[in-house]
């Protein structure tokens, strides 16, 4: 592989990412399934980078999940988006930072629609006025939260306590990076690095010492697909998509997967458990599963935050082997103790996914 060829493409797809004064809008899914990621993002942006980041207490879902799932009609979705913009305008901000990739896709698509069809924008403004009495300004900048971390990856690297390096061998960790489909597949020019060779996570991994793995099914969707997973019987399609990716990356012996979407880490993590139960097969170098992270979890981990504050205890594929590889210090006994040492309860052991089970019994 010729990296110079990729670099030429990355140069073509640069993006304007706002510097400060961020209006943060949260993700529906992440708050439940990846707790700690959003808190960590706010913590890093505010405390480590010293930026102004604000979340309006009245902000809601963008309804992307409902819209893509055929539950929310497009006019409703656009009006909700308009309301988010209105809240942002009222709070005096211009730079929108969605936490979720689907949201990012929704906001970008809505603005593109309004750009080409101004009559639709006028109609939505009217809907919003009738429903809430609110007015809004179009955001000056929309950057996904991973774009922000990407932009300040060097600053994070200088403050980091750890690197993406195997402390026993001294070699960089092999990292699979996975981009949410709605980040750059719809509008390649709105993603750092474009659609074919996205750079937003590659940049972070390179800066933090890891080695990026490019494998044949890198571009394949993880299979999240809203409609697919909402109905249980359809999940076969989702799990088959993720499985295709795992089969393809297996030969490269990756140490970890990093993604920037809410659905992707949830699925790439949980499907490894489901595949292990359905087929008896696990992935990763020692067959213990490949731990899946959000970029905030990785950034927080490298900055030295407590892994249990980052929410890593809810991962199905246990993260402890990777933490040990990096040399992150953590207290295994506190894994299932929440704030104020409240016992969060232990999950049942899986039958096949070895690491989780053996580590669970260790921590008991």
């Amino acid at each position, binding site marked *: *592989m010729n990296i*110079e*060829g990729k670099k*030429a*493409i990355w140069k073509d797809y640069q993006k304007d990412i706002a510097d400060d004064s961020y209006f943060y809008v949260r993700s529906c899914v992440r708050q439940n399934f990846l707790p700690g990621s959003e808190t960590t993002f706010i913590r890093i942006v505010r405390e480590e980078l010293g930026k102004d980041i604000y979340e309006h207490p009245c902000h809601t879902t963008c309804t992307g999940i409902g819209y893509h799932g055929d539950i929310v009609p497009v006019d409703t979705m656009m009006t909700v988006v308009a309301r988010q913009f209105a809240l942002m305008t009222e709070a005096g901000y211009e730079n929108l930072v969605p936490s979720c990739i689907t949201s990012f896709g929704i906001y970008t698509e809505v603005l593109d629609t309004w750009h080409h069809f101004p009559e639709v924008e006028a109609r939505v403004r009217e809907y919003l006025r009738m429903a809430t009495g609110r007015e809004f300004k179009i955001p000056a900048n929309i950057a996904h939260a991973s774009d922000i971390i990407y932009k300040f990856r060097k600053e994070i690297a200088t403050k980091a306590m750890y690197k993406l390096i195997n402390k026993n061998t001294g070699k960089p960790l092999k990292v699979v990076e996975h981009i949410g489909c709605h980040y750059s597949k719809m509008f390649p020019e709105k993603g750092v690095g474009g659609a074919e*060779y996205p750079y937003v996570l590659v940049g972070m991994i390179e800066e933090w010492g890891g080695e990026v793995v*490019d494998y044949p*099914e890198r571009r394949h969707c993880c299979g999240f697909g809203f409609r697919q997973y909402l109905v249980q019987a359809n999940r076969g399609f989702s799990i088959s998509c993720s499985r295709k990716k795992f089969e393809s990356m297996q030969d*490269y012996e990756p140490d970890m997967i990093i993604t920037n979407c809410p659905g992707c880490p949830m699925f790439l993590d949980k499907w490894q458990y489901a595949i292990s139960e359905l087929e008896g097969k696990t992935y990763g170098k020692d067959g213990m599963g490949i731990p899946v992270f959000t970029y905030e979890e990785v950034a927080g981990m490298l900055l030295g935050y407590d892994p249990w504050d980052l929410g890593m205890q809810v991962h199905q594929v246990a993260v402890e082997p990777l933490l040990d590889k990096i040399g992150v210090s953590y207290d295994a006994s506190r894994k299932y103790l929440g704030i104020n040492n409240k016992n969060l309860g232990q999950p049942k052991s899986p039958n096949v996914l070895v690491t989780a089970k053996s580590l669970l019994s260790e921590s008991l």
Partner: protein
Amino acid sequence: MNTQKTKSVIVIGAGIAGMESSAQLASFGHQVTLLEKEKVVGGHVANWERLFPTMKPASEIIDLLKTDIMNNVNVQLDAEVFKIEFSNQEFIVTLTDGQILKSDAVLLATGYDLFDPRGKEEYGYGIYDNVITSAELEAVFKNGKELKTSTGKTPKRVGIIHCVGSRDIKAGNQYCSNVCCITGVKQAIEIKEAVPDAEVFCFYMDLRMFGRYFEDMYLKAQEKYGVQFVRGRLSEACENQDGSLIIKVEDTLASKPLKMTVDLIVLLLGFEASKGTTSLGKMLHLNFGDDRFISPTNEHLLRHNTKMEGIFVAGTCTGPKSIIATISDARGAVITVNNYLNNLN
């Protein structure tokens, strides 16, 4: 007819159209200057090894044309046109080195450039080591080299991709480049001749075998050489750890997606109007088609006239053509220019 003074014409571009038209115009008694911005004549054909449909060497044509222009044509190499103006009943052509030439007519034979396949990011040209272009394959044969992958092994399976940069709105070119299909069949045969045990696949949308003997070549490729054809456009190429490539197409005739590993991918590049065609055409305010090639005054009967009197066109600057068509086209231009020059005072 007033022929007191010998008329002159400047031909820009010494590819086969430029060379053929220069030689013929000189044989009619006109004073011909042939300008070529590179250091050698011959254009693209000089880089080709064998030509369809005869499989004769390209060097035969180039040598013949070189001989024709040797005596009667004033050839200038390394001569790039900077400016063309019209004043006092004549054309003033200024070169980038400052030289000024004058003539009664100008014939543009500025030709085409091959599509830059880096524009098709998903094919991985310039990123994956074993993705090469049709031109690069031709160079391998021309230089007498063995066909090998980037790691030096003999390819066991080769995929030839049609329509790269053609019939593709995302690549910026909606048109068909005419000659790539037959080039693909020709190169498939040549690869089989070079590596008889290799499997060769052509991935096409349509097989445009329009010329004389083209269908025979297609039949021969299948019958004698065992080349296989898959009707399906390459959607994505990915690289394996060992440098081999995974091709993803739909086998449209089977209505199923198809995936295969190949050792080498050959991209059949489409034609685009060359930089020279574009810049000189714009400078002279000529009409261009949506395909960015120059539009002559009338596609059927006035193929060599342009909007500007005294400015003529020949060859692929008006659209992709085979060598056979280009030579015919050049001769047509000769008649037009000759008549024009003879009717001048």
